[in-house]
Every structure is written in C-alpha cells, then in structure tokens.
C-alpha cells in the first residue's frame, strides 16, 4: 500500500502531496484541497486555529486510507493536514488519490475527506473580529 500521511504545523505543499501518488501505472489522480474561507455564514473570518490529538489523528487517517484501499482499486493515497494558526487562503488539508481509472480516484478522495471530517480528532476554532468559536462543538 502506497500510503502517505502527514500532520504539520508549517505550510502544506500541494505539489509534494501530489508527487507522492504519481505513478506510471496510474491514469487518474483526484486531489482535494481544503482552504481557509474568508467568511462563515456571512461573518468575516480573521484566522483559523487547528488543534490535533496528533497520535490518534494519524491513526484515524491511516484507518481511512486502509478502508479506501479495501473498497477501491487504488494506486496510492496521500493525506496531509495542517495544525496551528492559519490565515485566510491557507491550505488546511490536501488529499491526493491515484488509480488506474478515474472513478476510483474520485470516489476514494471524496470518501476520505468526508470521513476525515467525521472521525479524525482535529479541532478548528474560527476567530472573528468579535469573538471565536469551536466549529461544530454545539448542536
């Protein structure tokens, strides 16, 4: 299994994440890039702060990759997540998946970001001009 996982408190590099999954036997790569948006529900966002339970986050990221390899015929899988303080426009997460055929790459990449948002112990605080909030904390 060609599987690459990274948690980093310094800026992520899109190209190096993509390079990890490139292969002569792959025909399609799907890449998802999550960036910091300048507004949430009409409120201006100043920055985001990401905090991770690092060892467990890497374990859960590995579970996601393993499930993706079980479900789809993949060539390689890479998931990089940022921690720390991020300004608007910065990259919070990159997921790159390669496969011989594109359907598997699309499906697995989407599965990976959807599952990451449900199960990986990483928390995001949105900082506004007039306060801050831990995203999704309350019903």
């Amino acid at each position, binding site marked *: 299994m060609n599987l690459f996982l990274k948690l980093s408190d310094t800026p992520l590099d899109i190209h190096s994440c993509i390079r990890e999954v490139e292969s002569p036997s792959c025909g399609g790569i799907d890449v998802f890039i999550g960036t910091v948006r300048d507004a949430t529900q009409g409120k201006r966002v100043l920055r985001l702060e990401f905090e991770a339970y690092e060892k*467990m986050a890497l374990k859960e990221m590995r579970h996601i990759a393993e499930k993706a390899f079980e479900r789809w015929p993949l060539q390689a899988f890479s998931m990089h997540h940022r921690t720390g303080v991020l300004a608007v426009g910065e990259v919070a997460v990159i997921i790159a998946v390669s496969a011989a055929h594109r359907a598997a790459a699309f499906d697995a990449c989407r599965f990976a970001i959807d599952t990451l948002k449900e*199960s990986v112990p*990483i928390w995001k605080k949105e900082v506004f001009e007039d306060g801050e909030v*831990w995203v999704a904390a309350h019903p």
Partner: protein
Amino acid sequence: MKIKILTFGIAREICGGSSIQADVPEGTTAAALKHHLAQQFPRLAGLASFLLAVNEEFAADDTLIHPGDEVAIIPPVSGG
C-alpha cells in the same frame, strides 16, 4: 484508580487544562467515566457529541479502563 485524561479543543477549555485527573474504581467502563466527567463538567454534556478515546481508539460504552491507559475526551471533531 487515578486516570489521566487528555483534553482537546473546547473540552480543554471546559475542563480548564490540557489534561485532568479522575479517580474512579477499577473496572470502570467508558460509559461510567463519561458519566463521572459529565457530572464534574456539566458543559461537556451540552456538546453536540462527547466521546472518549482509550489508547488512541474511539471507545465503546463497555470498553474497560485500565490503569495506565491513555484516555482522552473527544469533543465534536472539525478538521478539514
């Protein structure tokens, strides 16, 4: 037994530190520990979800907590 419990995100703010200690009987389950914590920190029960991890895996209600286990409170995750 004394259990050290890691906290993150809003749980860290609710509990007032990046780890706390709980004193619970041997043979305590995750469900019982959650109950104990919710009594001590009522705001945990007001979260959209409130799970425990034991040794870096999500714990089921009947997971037993052993001395030396790494226990963590997992408030609603919001990565990505």
